[in-house]
Each structure stands twice: as structure tokens, then as C-alpha cells.
């Protein structure tokens, strides 16, 4: 891969991104399309983060939405508490103008806290794996959702809101499609980090765990350490996607992070193919768009989507991409971007 081609793709991507932002700024694309783009971004982060554990490491985590919830609530609480004017004094803790700079920091803090929550799954994973670990992850999902349901500080089952005000506050200072910008930036950031992790000899340790854990341990891979890192990294990114999700919608309730959301993540990873980063990205895009296209069918769409999943699993059990990357199908792409 030449430096020249790499520059082309960075500049090309940058121009596209800028064009999108300009179009959003001058209302050339309507809010609905913008929101779909943002959901695609959130789903890409969610799916790729899950693919670290389920795809690359070969463990079966099915409570990933729990970590998304942690990130969503932590960042929402922070942004609302810091930047919403107090009813009595009319002043917020920090001046609202700072929210423009601190917003990404808040999202990352949400991710860090979710990463720490990832320890809940990482530590049991030292001893158990496969079905047993799957049960533990479901349990963790339930623990987090039930805890949120019963915490009156965050509104219990009614949910928590006020994030829209913070975003409007930001837009009131300088008019700019902040959420669109940050969602896309974080999406690129997440893919970039995962790719760097997975292409290093260090990160490939988790692929060794997937293929033969005993051999990995004997051949000097510290499997406990790798599991810890992978689970924390994965749940941290899920937390980031949760924080963005909360700020895109402007409202969170525990119900949105139930086991159903985790299942959506699993669907995206398995549809895309285990151990394929571009597969997860593509299937996250397809899945989100499909949900939107089938929206007029209302409840029927939950018949059609699972049906499509059954068909894919029947005729292409390895998922759309298997463990291949885009460059394996289109070798010409290798010139522009090294996928693995």
C-alpha cells in the first residue's frame, strides 16, 4: 500500500464527510435522513465492538446492550448535570459554551465506565467459556437493566431525558450539526482502533484464543490478560455507542437496552460474518437501512427480518463475509486500504 493511495483515501473520505456536514448544515438533507445516518453510525460501533468478542475471540457474549446502557446513562447524566441550568439559580455547573468542547470527553468517559463494567464479564470468562459464559453475559445484561429500572435518580423505568436541551444549547451557540459530526467521527475512530488492535501481533492473541485456547496458553499468550483487554475494549466501545445513541435520541430508558438490543447486535455480527470487520460494518449498515425501509410494515417487519436471517444462515452460514475482509473479494481495494 503506497503512501499516495492512503492519502487519496483520507482526502477523499474527508471531502465526503465535509460535504455531508455542509449539506446537513444548510438543510439540504432532511432531519430524517440525518437521523438514519446517525443510527447507522451507532449500530456500526455497537456491532464492531461486539465482533471483537464474538467474532475475533470466539466467546459468546449476548449481553452487550448492558454495556451500551452503562455508557448511555453515564454520559447522559454527565452532560445533563453539567450543562443544564439549575431551576433555582438559572446557572449550570459549567457554562453551556464549554459543552461544545467537552461533549466528546463526556462520551469517552461513558465508554471508560462501560469498559470498567466489562470486568463483570471478563473475570468470569477466565474460568468458563461457551454456553456458560453466554449465560453469565445474559445475567449481566439483566443486572444492569434491572438496576437502572430501580434507580430513581435516573428516572427508573420512565427513563431519563434532557440531552436534547444540551444539544440545542450547543447549536444555539454555533449552528452546526454536532451530533452528525461526532457520530461519524466516533464511528471512524472505533473502526480505526479495532483494526489497529486486530492487525498487531498483540491483538492477534485473541484470534489464537478463538482457534485453540490451550495452544494459545502454552505458546506464551497470556489468555487471561488478553480476555480482560478484549472484554474491556469491546464493552468500552459499546459504551461509546450507547452515549451517542442517548444523545441522538435525547432520551434513554432501560427498556431500550434489554436483551432484544443485544440480540440486534448479535444479528449484525453473525450476518456480517464472524471475524470480519468490514462484514460487521456492512451488515450494520444493511440492518439499519432494512429496519427503516420495512418501517411501514410495522410489526410485520419482525417477521420478515428474522425470516431473512434464517435464509442467510441456511444458505450462507458463515455470514455475508465469513472471516474475509472486503479486500479479499475486491483485490483492487488493497491498493487503497490495507484491511488486515
Amino acid at each position, binding site marked *: 500500500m503506497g503512501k499516495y493511495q492512503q492519502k487519496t483515501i483520507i482526502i477523499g473520505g474527508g471531502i465526503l464527510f465535509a460535504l455531508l456536514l455542509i449539506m446537513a448544515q444548510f438543510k439540504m438533507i432532511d432531519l430524517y435522513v440525518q437521523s438514519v445516518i446517525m443510527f447507522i453510525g451507532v449500530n456500526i460501533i455497537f456491532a464492531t465492538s461486539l465482533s471483537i468478542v464474538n467474532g475475533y475471540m470466539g466467546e459468546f457474549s449476548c449481553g452487550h446492550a448492558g454495556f451500551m446502557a452503562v455508557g448511555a446513562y453515564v454520559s447522559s447524566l454527565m452532560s445533563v448535570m453539567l450543562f443544564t441550568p439549575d431551576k433555582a439559580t438559572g446557572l449550570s455547573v459549567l457554562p453551556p459554551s464549554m459543552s461544545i468542547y467537552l461533549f466528546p470527553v463526556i462520551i469517552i468517559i461513558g465508554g471508560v465506565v462501560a469498559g470498567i463494567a466489562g470486568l463483570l464479564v471478563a473475570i468470569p470468562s477466565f474460568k468458563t467459556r461457551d454456553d456458560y459464559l453466554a449465560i453469565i453475559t445474559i445475567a449481566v445484561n439483566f443486572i444492569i437493566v434491572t438496576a437502572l429500572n430501580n434507580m430513581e435518580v435516573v428516572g427508573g423505568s420512565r427513563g431519563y431525558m434532557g440531552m436534547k436541551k444540551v444539544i440545542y444549547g450547543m447549536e444555539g451557540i454555533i449552528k452546526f450539526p454536532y451530533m452528525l459530526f461526532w457520530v461519524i467521527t466516533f464511528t471512524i475512530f472505533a473502526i480505526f482502533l479495532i483494526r489497529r488492535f486486530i492487525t498487531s501481533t498483540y491483538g*492477534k492473541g485473541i484470534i*489464537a484464543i478463538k482457534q485453540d485456547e490451550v495452544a494459545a496458553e*502454552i*505458546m*506464551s499468550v497470556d489468555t487471561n490478560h488478553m480476555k480482560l483487554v478484549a472484554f474491556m475494549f469491546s464493552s468500552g466501545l459499546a459504551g461509546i455507542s450507547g452515549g451517542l445513541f442517548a444523545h441522538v435520541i435525547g432520551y434513554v430508558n432501560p427498556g431500550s437496552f434489554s436483551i432484544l438490543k443485544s440480540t440486534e447486535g448479535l444479528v449484525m455480527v453473525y450476518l456480517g460474518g464472524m471475524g470480519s470487520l468490514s462484514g460487521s460494518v456492512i451488515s450494520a449498515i444493511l440492518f439499519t437501512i432494512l429496519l427503516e425501509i420495512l418501517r411501514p410494515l410495522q410489526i410485520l417487519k419482525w417477521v420478515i427480518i428474522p425470516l431473512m436471517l434464517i435464509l442467510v444462515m441456511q444458505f450462507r452460514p458463515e455470514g455475508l463475509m465469513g472471516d474475509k475482509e472486503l479486500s479479499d473479494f475486491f483485490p483492487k481495494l488493497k491498493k487503497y486500504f490495507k484491511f488486515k
Partner: protein
Amino acid sequence: MSLLKITDLTQRFGGLTAVSDLQVDLEEGGLYGLIGPNGAGKTTIFNMVSGFYTPTEGTIDFDGTVINGKKPHSVTALGIGRTFQNIRLWHDMTVLDNIRLSQHYHLGYSVFEPFIRTKNYYSNEKRIEDKSMELLGVFNLQDIAQEFPKNLPYGIQRRVEIARALAANPKLLLLDEPAAGLSSADVVDLIDHIRWIHDNFDITIWMIEHQMEVIMNLCKYIKVIDFGKTIAEGTPDEIQKNPQVIKAYLGDEEEMYA
């Protein structure tokens, strides 16, 4: 100088004593054999030495460090490499990656450097890659560096597995039935191959093997165990004449006619 010194090693699984009161003393640079009938506890001994099982009793002293109770990856980092009876390569990873990953204990960069990609990261990745390619070159495997092990013939897979074990710079190499599943022509190659490794890598080898041809040709000193107990040890000639060994392998004559 003694490299591996095992004293009073015992391993019990519930009521079953798999290995009892084992004494082993391997000198540096030797080529040792471990034989015994099926289920005698040979692989259990290797599993204890490589840190996979924690011994019930006794100590394993490797190069001045007591290693029982240590995790397998840290035992490997101390300098014990091993291969498996049934080849355990990472089959969906290239041969090069297989070799590269067994240097995981000594990457030379911190957890965050893969993300930030510092100079140090690149130079260490380069070092690992160069070393892996060099090792593959030594084994004449450089042409299959980008192949997946699952697509390779069994004999080549064995060689890749031995190369992978050597990538971690072991002082002691444990070979668990290296000739299992090989054709007789491959076995002859393997004997030369192991002797060549022993001479060129300055390494101590301890091997389990069922094929007497391999053991008698290679090993200078052999230990025979049965039901977890040592029944004989000595040079190949002594072992071949030992009545107890013959009894363990062929059965008791009186018992047979009784």
C-alpha cells in the same frame, strides 16, 4: 548441569493416581526419551511440566526456578516449549502468524502501543516478523509462510508445530509423540530432523514416543513408566533387555498361560 529436576512428583485426579513419586533429572543438552504403555501417565507428566496441571505433590525445578503452580504462558516464557500429540496449530491463521504469535511473551511494547503505533511498536513488529521468517527459512518452510496449516500435509504440519515451539526460544523442548500419524518415510525424516534441531539449536529435548525406532535411534537415556511409576531407566540397550519393560509392553508370560 541439571536443567530440569523433578522430585517426588505426584498427580492425583480424584481417586486415581496418574503419576506417583516421579524423579527426573535432565542434564543440559541431552536428548531424553519417555516411554510407557497407553495411559501410563506420560502426557500427564508433560502437562505438569508445561504448567497445564498443578502437581498434587512434589516440585519441578527448571533452571533454578520452581515452576509448579505457574501458568503455562509464564512457563513458556521461562524457556519450556512443547508440541502436542494431536497437532494443535491455529489452523485458520497463516503459518507465519502461527510462528509470530508464539513470541507473544516478548513483544517489547506495551498494551497501548498497537493503538498509537509508536516507533518502538514498528521496530518490534519488524523484529518479530524477521525472526519468524528466519526461523521458517531455517526449516525450509518459507514458501508456505502465507498458507493456512489446515491445507498442509500432516508431516509439514508437524514441522510447523516444532518450528512454532522453537520460536519462543526454549531451552527445553518437550515433544509429545512427534511421530504419531506419520508414514514410515516421514518418520525417517523426522528422526534426522529432530537430531538436526538438537545439534543446531543448542537445546535439551525430552520426547514421548511409541515408535521404538525413533526413541532407540535418538535418545541417549530413556525412562520407562507404567501406571504412573518408573519401572526402568537407562540407555536404549539396557531398556531393550530389561525384563520389567518387556513385561509392561508384552504382558507377563505366566499370566498369559495361567
